[in-house]
């Protein structure tokens, strides 16, 4: 039995598409319309968890394999292997502020750990204000001078008339594999990685003109 963690939300559909393309029997839309979070298909159990929890499940061995963004991997200091980097769902972690904002003294973010590392790497000092969501508002309402958050299309930033000031990190989703399961189930895990890699390359090919 192998347990695969799929992140709900932004990456869910694309992550499932990769596994489907790799020949796995993944739960369909009808299944997902129910409230169930665990689906058994053959000898694979698919679990659907909040994106920020995927690294936690995999790190602890509650799931063997998962799909997680580098943002969540870094924020959880997750030590799982990252054998495949996907081309979908790429975005950037950015430092954002309102035009004419005062100097950086407070940062609102969902990623306090990454924010701390960013400040350290730039030799900056600022207070970090952890928030649960809609982080841009903190800059709009001047709760903080700055915000660190993911930027995909930049639409949210434009709507709120904010500006991008610095790139904190480039973020891509990855296939993550627990260290221990990699060693105790090496053959099955390697086969899974090879199939995912192949499906990823095939989808790249099909996008060529």
């Amino acid at each position, binding site marked *: 039995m192998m347990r695969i963690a799929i992140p709900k939300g932004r990456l869910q559909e694309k992550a499932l598409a990769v596994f489907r393309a790799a020949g796995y029997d993944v739960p369909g839309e009808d299944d997902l319309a129910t409230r169930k979070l665990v689906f058994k298909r053959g000898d694979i159990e698919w679990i659907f968890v909040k994106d920020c929890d995927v690294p*936690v499940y995999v*790190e*602890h*061995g509650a799931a*063997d394999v998962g799909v997680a963004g580098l943002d969540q991997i870094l924020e*959880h*200091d*997750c*030590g799982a*292997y*990252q*054998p*495949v*980097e996907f081309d979908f769902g790429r975005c950037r972690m950015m430092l954002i502020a309102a035009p004419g904002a005062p100097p950086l003294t407070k940062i609102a973010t969902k990623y306090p750990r990454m924010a701390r590392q960013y400040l350290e790497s730039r030799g900056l000092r600022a207070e970090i204000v952890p928030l649960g969501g809609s982080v841009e508002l903190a800059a709009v309402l001047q709760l903080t001078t700055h915000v660190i958050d993911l930027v995909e299309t930049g639409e949210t930033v434009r709507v709120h008339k904010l500006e991008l000031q610095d790139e904190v990190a480039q973020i891509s989703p990855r296939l993550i*594999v*627990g260290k*221990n*399961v*990699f*060693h*105790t*189930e*090496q053959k099955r895990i*390697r086969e899974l*990685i*090879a199939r995912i890699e192949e499906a990823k390359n095939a989808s790249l090919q099909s996008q060529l003109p």
Partner: protein
Amino acid sequence: MAAKLRYPTGVRPLLIEETARRRRVEARFVGALERAGFAEVVLPIIDYADPYAPFADRNSVRQSYRFVDREGDLVGIRSDFTPMLARALAPSISEDELPLRIFYRGDVIRFEASRLGANRELFQIGAEIVGDGSVEADVEMLRLAAELVRDSGARPTIVYNDTSIVTSLGSSAVRAALVAKRMNDSVPGDRRDVVGKLIGGAATIDDVAPFAPDAAARLRAIAGALIDGDFVLHLDDVDEAVGYYTGIRFRVYANGGRRKVAQGGRYDNLYARFGTAAAAIGFTFTIDDLD
């Protein structure tokens, strides 16, 4: 703060049943180690941070609880037995006493912020052979680790590798690629083939032999001696940080489970740092992980 019911994160008391279980496991381990010719030493729970500073990597510093004692010295609570044993033994061992077979038991305290819910106080039993750099000592310790798992009624899986292989492949990019299990652009051209094979699980001892001939010869000898299926050579199993290991490195699993119950390896330069050169190999079981 009102802490009537709570304990600090990661620690808790063991009450009657759990303590009885812990003591049963402990007695079984101690009995097996004594029968195998190992003698016990007791190490202090705190020690100065200073003697360990030259080789304490960022991770081990981050993991240890440290404080300034009343004399103004920086001290740390025990978080790893191995360097402490080296510091304790090195000044007093003499050539003619070697090899020594030593075991120890006790708690280590580690601050592991990333592992939510993980214990911070871990009860460990470890064993070492000091002063024997031979392949036979490697094989003896691997077999002993497997035996201890079998004594617990479980089937062992012992994954081993030689840490000097990744070191001899040079470039930190190679280690990064093997740690992530994904190729990166910074791996030098002449290493890409072997690193690719290692990541893909296709590499054999022959593939790494040109880069690390000594490690390859040693792994061949070990693999030749440990032919049963409980011992598996994973050439791509690489530690994130260099640490003090110099040769064979292994992790022990029980019943194909997802958690490792023990880990260990060879550290032939550690004793020299405390004044007396002596090769050494050892392992540590975390007893909370074994029934």
